[in-house]
């Protein structure tokens, strides 16, 4: 392939247009969740700049909600960081699936792309890569446009939160209710239900024994391990390395 600079820049431009055109459903989803996160974080005592900084540096919805919930309960930095790590380990799986389609891309572009891998951008980019006619310009655009809307949404929520009185209309319960909704969406089959029940019981037991908030990581890693063992015992033909 011989490409002249003009053609390359034209291709990049087309890629960016295609990326923007594809990203809008993700952005539409991020704005209300971002607003909700901003309000809840403000109620938990964070200032707008702290909310924006978290969205910029971490850029991971569930982990941000969990971190705010832990911080408002007085958790220390080490247990918040360790829990964030475990919550976001799932991106390892997503990044591995995307890597198959991104051979030959320059390292620094891959490193930039890695920053924007979320549940939603992953699902969108992977399906487009599978369809073909999708490249790094499109994928990077999807990631960064959705990142922009996430940061803007959470910041707007952080400022709006100052006008919402504390404790109004069950707002203290917004976060637990959101976790219930997210949990139900994850129950995609029997082993997910078994793992969730196991994790809940272990966590209550550990919460009464272990100091601080380490019960969250301990219970979830152990329960996920239990879930793997149970599903393997049930169907020995499944997987098998």
């Amino acid at each position, binding site marked *: 392939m011989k490409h002249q600079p003009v053609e390359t820049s034209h291709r990049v431009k087309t890629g960016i247009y295609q990326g923007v055109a594809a990203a809008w459903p993700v952005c539409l989803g991020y704005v209300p969740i971002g607003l909700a996160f901003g309000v809840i974080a403000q109620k938990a005592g964070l200032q707008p700049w*702290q909310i924006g*900084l978290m969205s910029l*540096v971490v850029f991971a919805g*569930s982990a941000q909600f*969990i*971190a705010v*919930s832990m911080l408002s309960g007085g958790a220390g*930095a080490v247990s*918040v*960081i360790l829990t*964030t*790590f475990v*919550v*976001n*380990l*799932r*991106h*390892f799986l*997503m*990044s*591995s699936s*995307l*890597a*198959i389609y*991104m*051979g030959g891309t320059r390292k620094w572009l*891959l*490193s930039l792309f*890695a*920053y924007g*891998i979320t549940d939603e951008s992953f699902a969108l980019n992977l399906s487009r890569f599978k369809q073909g006619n999708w490249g790094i310009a499109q994928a990077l655009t999807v990631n960064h446009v959705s990142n922009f809307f996430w940061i803007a949404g959470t910041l707007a929520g952080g400022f709006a939160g100052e006008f919402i009185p504390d404790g109004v*209309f*069950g707002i203290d*319960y*917004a976060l*637990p*209710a*959101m976790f*219930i*909704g997210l*949990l*139900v969406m*994850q129950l995609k089959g029997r*082993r*997910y239900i078994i*793992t*969730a029940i196991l*994790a*809940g019981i272990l*966590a*209550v037991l550990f*919460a*009464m024994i272990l100091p601080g908030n380490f*019960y*969250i990581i301990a*219970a*979830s890693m152990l329960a996920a*391990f239990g*879930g793997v063992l149970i599903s393997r015992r049930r169907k020995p033909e499944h997987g*098998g390395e």
Partner: protein
Amino acid sequence: MNELDYIWLILGMGLVTYIPRWLPLAVLAGRRLPGWLVEWLDLIPVAILASLLLPLMVVSDTTGKADPLRPEFLAGIITLVFALKVKSLSGTVIVGMLVYWLISSLI
């Protein structure tokens, strides 16, 4: 937590979030992961949410003991039933807030 500690916290969270996003793209380059690891990683989100939620609802902040009659837990059961029936995230949040507000103003 003071402002400097907060910045360190965010940098730590950012680093541990970035590494699993970056490593497979930069190093593995399309190599397949072992089956058990894929399954384990797949079960992590549901396990985290459950182990975050149940103690939040059942374990009392003051005594540190399990108490199934807390308004958090009672509201949680109703919210869970709603979420299972109507699979809507925003609907679940609104119903949860409403139910919790009603229960805690009754008790």
